[in-house]
């Protein structure tokens, strides 16, 4: 069963972070992983607010055979979308705000990271971190 967090304003980004930390801690992630997950959620939640004004996050615990348990977050918006996903993932790429490490940095914190986006149709970003590696 997935849960949902709506992102409509800046304080929702903080709410998303708090929920991410709480869920990660409850699932038994190490302190390091809790920090990675919370940081990734903070980055992607902010992106929704910055580029699409509003959107939502769905999250749930997942299991996959021998991979065991993991946590999945899906970030969705109906904003302008990411014109060039490849470019957006390049180190140092920035569309103005942040350090240009947002997406590429987030990708490095996670075990799985997929973007689906087409211009004008918004973006869907899915991230996963597994409990045991």
């Amino acid at each position, binding site marked *: 069963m997935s849960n949902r967090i709506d992102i409509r304003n*800046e*304080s929702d*980004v*903080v709410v998303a*972070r*708090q929920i991410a*930390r709480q869920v990660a801690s409850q699932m038994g992630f190490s*302190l*390091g992983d*809790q*920090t*990675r997950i*919370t*940081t990734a959620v*903070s*980055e992607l939640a*902010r992106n929704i607010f910055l580029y699409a004004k509003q959107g939502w996050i769905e999250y749930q615990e997942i299991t996959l055979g021998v991979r065991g348990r993991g946590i999945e977050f899906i970030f969705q918006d109906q904003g302008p979308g990411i014109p060039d996903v490849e470019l957006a993932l390049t*180190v140092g790429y920035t569309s103005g*705000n*942040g*350090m*240009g*490490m*947002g997406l*590429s*940095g*987030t990708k*490095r*914190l996670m075990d799985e990271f997929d973007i689906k986006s087409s211009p004008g149709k918004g973006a869907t970003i899915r991230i996963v971190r597994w409990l045991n590696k």
Partner: protein
Amino acid sequence: MNKSSIVKIHNALVVTLQGEIDDRTALELQQEILQSVIRYQVSGVVIEISQLDLVDSYMARILSETARMIKLMGAETFLAGLRPMVAVTIVEMGLNIDGVKTALNLEVALEVLKGGR
């Protein structure tokens, strides 16, 4: 939510970042720190962040920019008390916090600013 504070100790400004800081609050804090540097005529600023449980790319940029602004005003900035796991995440993401000196804790930073070493 944001429980940060700015106090003057000797010739330094001690900024304790605490609680949940959203992007707007971070910008407001930057403004407040810069104003305080002028008001209290300090030669150094210590940003104590042992209570922060995450530093993402935005926060890293704000910290780095604030340090560079303070430098332009003729003072030094120390980042003190960064949590180990936050440091690991910053490094893994490839974030840079330029222009900031670091110290293990507030005492060490104040000591260095006092000209102890």
